[in-house]
């Protein structure tokens, strides 16, 4: 045991810098940002900024207010067409007829207003319906008759274009001589709301509605699901045909609206109206990051894409380049967008898995010596050698054990059951209740209901009639958190205050239960203590940024809880009542191992299980976050340097943090590891999360009648 011989070292400057860097630079946010869905927009957004910067630099009055108004008026029309295209693309289709449909909308508007003399209020819905009908025809052909989207909409493109051309031939003359005069119409075409052009306002309204539908409503989710995998969506019972048809119809309606706005702005119809619009809209949609394969897209992406395309086409025109260069720039941009889209999709998860794990700087204090001759309370001994074994091979992963007033022994297992062993010999058992997940810490409340922390699920209650009910599985989301930390991932251990409040630990918010080694590798303050108040039924986070908080125990004074932080090797006290309420005090900081559950002992002291022991080589690595990060990337988790969880012990300490004694089993053959212990009527019962047994050992000097349930709540 080298702890005492290890030379004192000075902290070199480099280490100080590393400490500061890892303290103030939030590495973990990079990975968390990458894990968000909206991060897909980062690349298109960067392109947008580049485009703005480039043309802003090349064209002197690019940002002049007058020009901005014109551009945003155009954007109102173009953006609607892009959203129309996006609506179809996310269900895995394509709509080439947007340009012709747009022209049809434009023509219908002018014809109805100028020739038929209809009022604007009647024209708007009719135009939208006419173009929606074209979309509906597309939808029926593609959705119900299963024709190819590309060919079908190509045909519609040609036919609608031909119809518009024929109509123009017949009516263009009459339309051009008549003029529709109306204030409302002028407001739509030339005016705006508070200086913002009407068409842009319409776009914003449509975009907001579209965004809500797409991200927060069933039809939107269904459209996404169908685009992601048509076959799976069908198998799970979604109406694939209806949804596809609907999205084409909506696309058509949006084109009509756009055509109407165009008509209001220019008031004229020509054969070139909407010519090439489908290519521009397609470019915009793909450039924004909407996947052509379907299932991945958003309104925001469509808008970003439309701004980019519009700025580029306008910019090229204003630069005075010759006529072919506009489409050329557009084509090259489309090529670039498809390339980036493919690479991003392929590599995003790889990148995420590389950067998500972000170890931080940890300097653990010198551990107390465990040398048999050291004279410390941690000195190795063999007091657990004669552990009696309960349920060998019949119980798997009993993380916590607990006994009730009638001496029944309860434990969880990895199948999601809570088992009950029968006294006095604990040779027979039954499944007391099935919860699911991984039952971990347990506690009895005043009414002798069993509260259980379930890894992966939350806090659950088993009533005395064995009915299982959820107590809580979410807490308030922390402000400014990138990942959603409102759901409980790893509720670990709990205890109940005299007033009924339940305090429980959540070991980590960044990883699932079986990824605990990754959290150990990070050793960041990823965990928290959460409080559930049965009086209000509300759950809130009491303490944040704890390093794998694990065991929780109500102190004997009833005003504070003791909690263990495993990877920090320390035990602290958190005041929940009284004058110091809300304060945290460190109790023990130099544990030679990783503390797990804490429970009361009969004489007013506390038991804590050390689930594993510190190894000096890992302690060195904890001061080198970069080393640990590279280790996580380069070698398989099986080969990582782990906390040594193959040996553990039980330690007793008092309210002042003084360690009184420790109980060891050196060979570890009888009872390999310990995550929890409960004292009950002169015995100490031992649980271990990677064990296939429960142990118990006689405590000669303890109160032979003491039971925790009675000590907490009085006689039942």
């Amino acid at each position, binding site marked *: 045991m080298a702890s005492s011989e290890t030379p004192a070292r000075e902290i070199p400057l480099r280490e100080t810098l590393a400490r500061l860097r890892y303290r103030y630079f939030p590495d973990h946010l990079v990975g968390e940002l990458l894990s968000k869905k909206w991060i897909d927009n980062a690349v298109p957004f960067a392109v947008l900024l580049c485009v703005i910067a480039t043309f802003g630099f090349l064209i002197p009055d690019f940002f002049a207010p007058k020009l901005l108004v014109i551009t945003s008026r155009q954007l109102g029309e173009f953006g609607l067409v892009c959203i129309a295209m996006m609506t179809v693309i996310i269900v895995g289709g394509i709509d080439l007829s947007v340009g012709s449909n747009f022209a049809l909308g434009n023509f219908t508007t002018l014809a109805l207003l100028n020739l038929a003399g209809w009022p604007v209020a009647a024209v708007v819905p009719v135009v939208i319906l006419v173009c929606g009908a074209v979309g509906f025809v597309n939808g029926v052909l593609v959705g119900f008759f299963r024709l190819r989207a590309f060919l079908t909409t190509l045909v519609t493109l040609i036919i609608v274009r031909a119809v518009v051309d024929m109509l123009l031939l017949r009516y263009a003359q009459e339309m051009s001589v008549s003029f529709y005069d109306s204030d409302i119409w002028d407001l739509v075409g030339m005016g705006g709301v508070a200086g913002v052009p009407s068409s842009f306002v319409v776009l914003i309204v449509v975009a907001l509605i579209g965004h809500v539908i797409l991200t927060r409503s069933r039809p939107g989710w269904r459209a996404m699901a169908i685009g992601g995998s048509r076959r799976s969506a069908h198998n799970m019972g979604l109406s694939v045909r209806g949804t596809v048809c609907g999205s084409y119809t909506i696309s058509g309606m949006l084109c009509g609206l756009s055509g109407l706005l165009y008509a209001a702005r220019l008031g004229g119809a020509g054969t070139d109206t909407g010519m090439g619009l489908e290519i521009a809209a397609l470019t915009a949609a793909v450039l924004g990051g909407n996947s052509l394969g379907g299932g991945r897209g958003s309104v925001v992406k469509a808008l970003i894409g439309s701004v980019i395309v519009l700025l580029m086409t306008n910019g090229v025109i204003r630069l005075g380049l010759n006529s072919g260069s506009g489409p050329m720039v557009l084509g090259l941009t489309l090529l670039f967008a498809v390339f980036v889209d493919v690479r991003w999709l392929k590599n995003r998860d790889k990148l995420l898995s590389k950067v998500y794990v972000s170890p931080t700087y940890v300097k653990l204090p010198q551990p107390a010596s465990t040398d048999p001759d050291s004279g410390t309370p941690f000195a190795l001994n063999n007091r657990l050698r004669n552990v009696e074994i309960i349920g060998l091979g019949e119980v798997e992963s009993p993380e916590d054990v607990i006994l009730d007033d009638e001496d029944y022994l309860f434990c969880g297992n990895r199948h999601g059951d809570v088992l009950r062993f029968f006294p006095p010999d604990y040779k027979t058992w039954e499944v007391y209740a099935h919860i699911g997940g991984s039952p971990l810490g347990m506690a009895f409340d005043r009414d002798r209901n069993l509260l259980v922390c379930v890894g992966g699920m939350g806090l659950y209650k088993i009533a005395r009639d064995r009915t299982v009910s959820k107590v809580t599985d979410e807490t308030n989301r922390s402000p400014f958190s990138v990942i959603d930390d409102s759901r409980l991932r790893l509720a670990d251990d709990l205890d109940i205050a005299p007033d009924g409040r339940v305090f429980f630990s959540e070991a980590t918010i960044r990883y699932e239960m079986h990824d605990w080694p990754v959290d150990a590798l990070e050793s960041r303050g990823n965990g928290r203590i959460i409080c559930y108040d049965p009086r209000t039924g509300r759950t809130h986070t009491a303490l944040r940024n704890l390093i794998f908080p694990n065991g929780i125990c109500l102190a004997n004074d009833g005003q504070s809880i003791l909690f263990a932080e495993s990877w920090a090797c320390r035990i602290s006290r958190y005041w929940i009542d009284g004058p110091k309420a809300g304060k945290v005090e460190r109790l023990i900081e130099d544990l030679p191992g990783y503390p797990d559950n804490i429970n009361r002992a009969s004489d007013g002291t506390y038991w804590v299980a050390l689930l594993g022991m510190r190894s000096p080589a890992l302690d060195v690595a904890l001061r080198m976050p970069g080393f640990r990060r*590279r280790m996580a990337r380069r070698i398989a988790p099986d*080969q990582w340097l782990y906390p040594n969880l193959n040996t553990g012990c039980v330690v007793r300490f008092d309210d002042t943090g003084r360690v009184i004694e420790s109980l060891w089993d050196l060979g570890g053959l009888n009872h390999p590891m310990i995550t929890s212990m409960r004292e009950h009527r002169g015995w100490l019962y031992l649980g271990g999360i990677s064990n296939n047994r429960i142990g118990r050992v006689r405590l000669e000097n303890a109160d032979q009648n003491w039971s925790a349930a009675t000590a907490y709540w009085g006689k039942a």
Partner: protein
Amino acid sequence: MLAALRGSLDRLLGRGTAAVTVPPLDGALKPNNLLENAPHAVGVQEPDNIVLGRQGLMFSSGERVLRLEPAVGAEPVTVITAAGPITAMALAPSGSFAVASDAGGIVLFDEGGRNRTVGSGSGKALSCVTAMGFADDRTLLVCVGSTENAIGDWQRDLLSGGRSGSVWRFDLASGEATQLAGGLGFPNGILAEPDGQIVICESWGKRLVRIGASGRANGPVLEDLPGYPARLSRSARGGYWLSVFAPRSQLIEFIMREPAYRNAMMAEVDPAYWVAPALRSGVSFREPMQGGALKQMGILKPWAPTRSYGLVIELDGNFEAVRSMHSRAGGRRHGVTSAVEQDGVLWVTSKGGDQVVALDLGTDGAK
């Protein structure tokens, strides 16, 4: 320039020279429990170098040379006690034998029991002698593991990338010493071939190399071993027995590419708890533990990553592995430093397991 660029790119991405791949135990090296479960063994404190001569089987243990008695269950008999812990020994065809220790240098004992010190004539005392072999009665070949670290510090030599090992030839008649090769990564086994060439086990290179009688490098004969090779002896079938004293692991390969961590660890941590190969492991909970070695339901998986392992490999005349005997993760007979075959029985010194193990090779020693 390009190579330097590629080197730093490799380090950034963990490719090429920075890859931490370890050859799998496969084919003839497929793991078994033959070594672990062999029924006959003699318990001795840290047996190291076992040799076979006219007097029978002799091996070193601490400061003593012991002879194995043929009778079953008989205690080995002490033949010689040297000045300090013996690091290597060799038997000459004539029956005289050489014993090396850091304290006493190389001492030659003839059959009459007289002894004389070798190599003092050159004025240069050799320490850290890891292996010896007689080319003939008057020529002794000597491996010096490292000139920078003592032999007990072999882990430090490995972690600091030691390449200060050398191979020497002593003419016993004239007392003349010649260095045949230098700059080796801990040569740890040596064998003279009938044609005068010499095969050397270079531990840190994880390979066997061949040099000519005059020291000319003739290239490697076996490369990329899954462990660190120790001594080499002849088999009855014209091949060789290669002892492998510790396994390679991805973690250690990775740490070899992390100088900052390596240096901090060597400066602060007791060598017994280093992340380094070892002759035995699992003694203390302060030793580093790797993920796969976490016991589940009370069981350590035999394929768990481990710092120590027991492995003897039989090579044929072309240095192709033919078969192997293992003591896997969690086993006792780890840290095999030498092996020698006698009448269909392979005697193996498990330095980490404090045993000399007898492996029955079958009636004729064949598979």
